[in-house]
């Protein structure tokens, strides 16, 4: 039996797949096992195939693989959709009493467990608990202590009353004992438990938690998959720290509300996805020209236009780097794992205030809506530092007033960073505008002042390039001939792919880049490598283009844009192939 175990529940949207999967993931986490989840879902409330998948191991799991050991199938389509991932000996739990499942297409080489999920659930108190019966059956197959499932059920249903919790526990036990009593079979799976305590969270939640930790007190947003979870996380929590979440009428409004709050001095953010980024582009230049700190989270999904709203893609890199008319100074930060979503959010707020400009914080669907386990101290709140940049109070104002005693919000400085004072500060009243302006923030078309202000804003970026580390994350053998470069959420799959490649005797150096702009200089690493492979979830290789331009060298590309994230085993095979038969690259 491999060290990892791969489990899934699938059915139609509306079947409660998501909460069923989450309950089992929590049970595994409670049992001290590491968990990495993924979702296949369609953009519908009901109907259409959806699945929740869990990869679990006693050791770290950072990726999904193309292998499924146990499948709870509520529909025949669930089996069809996963046929390629199932293998000889895979267990399929299904309810043969359900009309559509009577002739469930269970392949001969697999173990079909016909369990009357609905009937047993009704015996325990209601048909709605049939998925929990299935979870109990899964406990039997995996010799997994059912007490861990109990505690996950308490967490899920505790607020709705003890009776409901007890009914669910009973439902789980009925599923468990049905399998034990009916099937005399050694399933060869035994999920070991440990005493470790892990937390289980997704990227959107990590971003929301990072925002609160960083002092964000104002969030305005418009619901959009897959960014809505950020808003839902903050709602009900940010208020406890004196903050507020507002659901705007559209993304145009959302970014402007956040901008208004930021002008008032709040650490403010909005989060959206591609279609919202397009709308927000309208005011993006205003944020930068008024030199207002703002964090805009872009949780990418498949585009263009409405694209595939519930599918993975990293296609917005160019939109974030170049979006908006005119020349707009901005930073683009792309955390590479769920715990980094937390830390990079904190950093994004500091960068925004230190350099008084918009910061794109970007994750993607696969990282945003899927969970992973971590040691709690991966989110050590004592390590959170807040730097509000050049903020001046009433006493500090005088230095920045002109001879008439007027405060200069766009004062020209050596590092390009002007002082900032907040509304309500005595003698600090000032305006600013999206028009080109002078140091007082008033409109100007003076040719010299135009150049001075453009240069000043650009100088902030140069200052940031010098002052901040913009460090990449390094993995593997620094002397390896093969260099893999990637950005954003592909890190976990690549790290696991490297372990598989190492077993084949292939050493790889991997540079995982969390900063798109400014970004680390990879010139030496590229010079030193024989093969350079840039891995990303888009069709054209937007990041690879940047790397080529920076290094004045050609790179090979591994692109995926079918809507599904990279998987470790598939990626290992692709890297192996690329290394053994390098693509012809025109020089």
């Amino acid at each position: 039996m491999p060290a990892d175990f791969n489990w899934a529940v699938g059915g139609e949207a509306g079947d409660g797949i998501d909460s069923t999967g989450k309950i089992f993931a929590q049970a595994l986490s409670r049992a001290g096992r590491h968990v990495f989840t993924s979702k296949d879902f369609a953009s519908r409330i009901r109907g259409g195939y959806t699945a929740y998948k869990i990869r679990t191991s006693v050791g770290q799991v950072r990726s999904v693989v193309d292998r499924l050991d146990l499948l709870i199938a509520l529909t025949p389509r669930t089996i069809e959709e996963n046929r390629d991932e199932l293998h000889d000996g895979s267990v399929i739990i299904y309810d043969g009493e359900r009309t559509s499942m009577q002739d469930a297409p269970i392949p001969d080489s697999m173990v079909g467990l016909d369990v009357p999920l609905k009937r047993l659930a009704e015996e325990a108190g209601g048909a709605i608990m049939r998925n929990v019966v299935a979870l109990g059956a899964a406990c039997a197959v995996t010799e997994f202590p059912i007490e861990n499932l109990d505690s996950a059920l308490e967490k899920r249903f505790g607020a709705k009353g003890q009776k409901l919790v007890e009914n669910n526990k009973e439902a789980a036990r009925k599923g468990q004992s049905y399998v034990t009593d009916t099937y005399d079979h050694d399933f060869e799976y035994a999920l070991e438990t440990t005493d470790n305590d892990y937390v289980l969270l997704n990227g959107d939640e990590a971003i929301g938690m990072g925002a609160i930790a960083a002092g964000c007190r104002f969030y305005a947003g418009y619901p959009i998959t897959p960014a809505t979870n950020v808003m839902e996380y903050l709602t009900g929590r940010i208020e406890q720290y004196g903050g507020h979440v507002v659901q705007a009428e559209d993304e145009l409004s959302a970014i402007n509300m956040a901008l208004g709050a930021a002008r008032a001095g709040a650490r403010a953010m909005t989060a959206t996805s591609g279609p919202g980024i397009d709308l927000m582009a309208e005011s993006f230049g205003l944020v930068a020209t008024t030199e207002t700190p703002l964090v805009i989270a872009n949780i990418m999904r498949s585009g263009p236009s409405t694209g595939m709203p519930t599918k993975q893609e990293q296609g917005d890199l160019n939109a974030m780097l170049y979006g908006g008319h005119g020349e707009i100074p901005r930073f683009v930060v792309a955390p590479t794992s769920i715990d980094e979503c937390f830390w990079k959010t904190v950093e994004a707020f500091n960068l925004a205030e230190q350099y008084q400009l918009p910061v794109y914080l970007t994750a993607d669907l696969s990282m945003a809506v899927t969970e992973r386990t971590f040691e709690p101290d991966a989110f050590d709140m004592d390590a959170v530092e807040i730097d509000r940049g050049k903020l001046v109070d009433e006493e500090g104002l005088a230095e920045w007033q002109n001879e008439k005693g007027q405060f200069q919000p766009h004062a020209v400085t050596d590092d390009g960073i002007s002082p900032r004072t907040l509304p309500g500060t005595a003698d600090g009243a000032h305006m600013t505008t999206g028009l080109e302006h002078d140091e007082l923030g008033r409109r100007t078309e003076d040719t010299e002042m135009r150049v001075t202000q453009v240069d000043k804003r650009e100088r902030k970026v140069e200052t940031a390039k010098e002052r901040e580390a913009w460090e990449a994350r390094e993995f593997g053998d620094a002397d390896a001939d093969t260099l893999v470069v990637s950005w954003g959420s592909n890190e976990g799959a690549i790290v696991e792919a490297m372990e598989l490649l190492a077993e084949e005797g292939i050493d790889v150096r991997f540079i995982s880049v969390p900063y798109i702009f400014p970004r680390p200089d990879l010139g030496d690493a590229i010079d030193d490598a024989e093969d350079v492979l840039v891995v990303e979830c888009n069709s054209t290789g937007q990041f690879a283009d940047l790397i080529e331009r920076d290094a004045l060298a050609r790179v090979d590309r591994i692109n995926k844009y079918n809507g599904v994230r990279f998987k470790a085993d598939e990626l290992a095979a692709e890297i192996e192939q690329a290394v053994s038969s390098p693509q012809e690259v025109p020089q």
Partner: protein
Amino acid sequence: MSSDVRFTDFKSDKQPTWCPGCGDFGTMNGMMKALANTGNSPDNTFVVAGIGCSGKIGTYMHSYALHGVHGRALPLAAGVKMANPDLEVMAAGGDGDGYSIGVGHFIHAVRRNVDMTYVVMDNRIYGLTKGQASPTSREDFETSTTPEGPKQPPVNPLALALSAGATFIAQSFSSDAMRHTEIVQEAVEHDGFGFVNVFSPCVTFNDVDTYDYFRDELVDVGETDHDPTDIENAQDVILDPEKEYQGVLYRNEQAQAYGAQHGLDDNMAEIPDGAPEDAMDLVREFY
């Protein structure tokens, strides 16, 4: 109220570039007087302006101010007020800004009822782009882009506001300085979204909706038995096809403003220099 703030304190040292005779001069004077009369100062006032001739107002007034992009003044202003409820927030824009490109925000700002003032300088024309039809232009008003008139009825902003659940709807005329100031002042004092549509004539591009027209035609509800707290009274004047009115047309003092409904009373700019003390609780939630 305040003894030491005069309305001229709200005047910047920048000379307006509005055309001589523009209604916006009077509109702005009334706004400054209303702010001073209600005890505000430039240091606690935040003015948000849209795009158009009216949008220049942030430059000519002295206060904290933000001149945004076209049509988005209302969400900007709402964000300012929500983040710091201690500020007096006033948004100003034109009829194009508020009723055309920004009309979606207008409806939702009315519904949201944030405690702020919204002054629309309505001249029924696009002036800054030199004379095209606006959403409040008359059906037969001939312009460079509508040689035979827009051939569609003008937007009735007062009716839009009423149907969206407004808590304060008023209309004034920039040239009637005293009444205009009184009306804007009532909007500032209103605990909620105080909306004032101000007839602010364009002397360069609009020869129909002129000073003379408004002087002759406007009926002041203050001189009638109009009861602004009676929604049917309000409907009658707002939907009257024959006459136009000035004064406070509708007011609902029962409705709670957004901030009160959502318990917003903290200045969100004030935060600790690290994560909140009990922030590890947020992590523990994920056990």
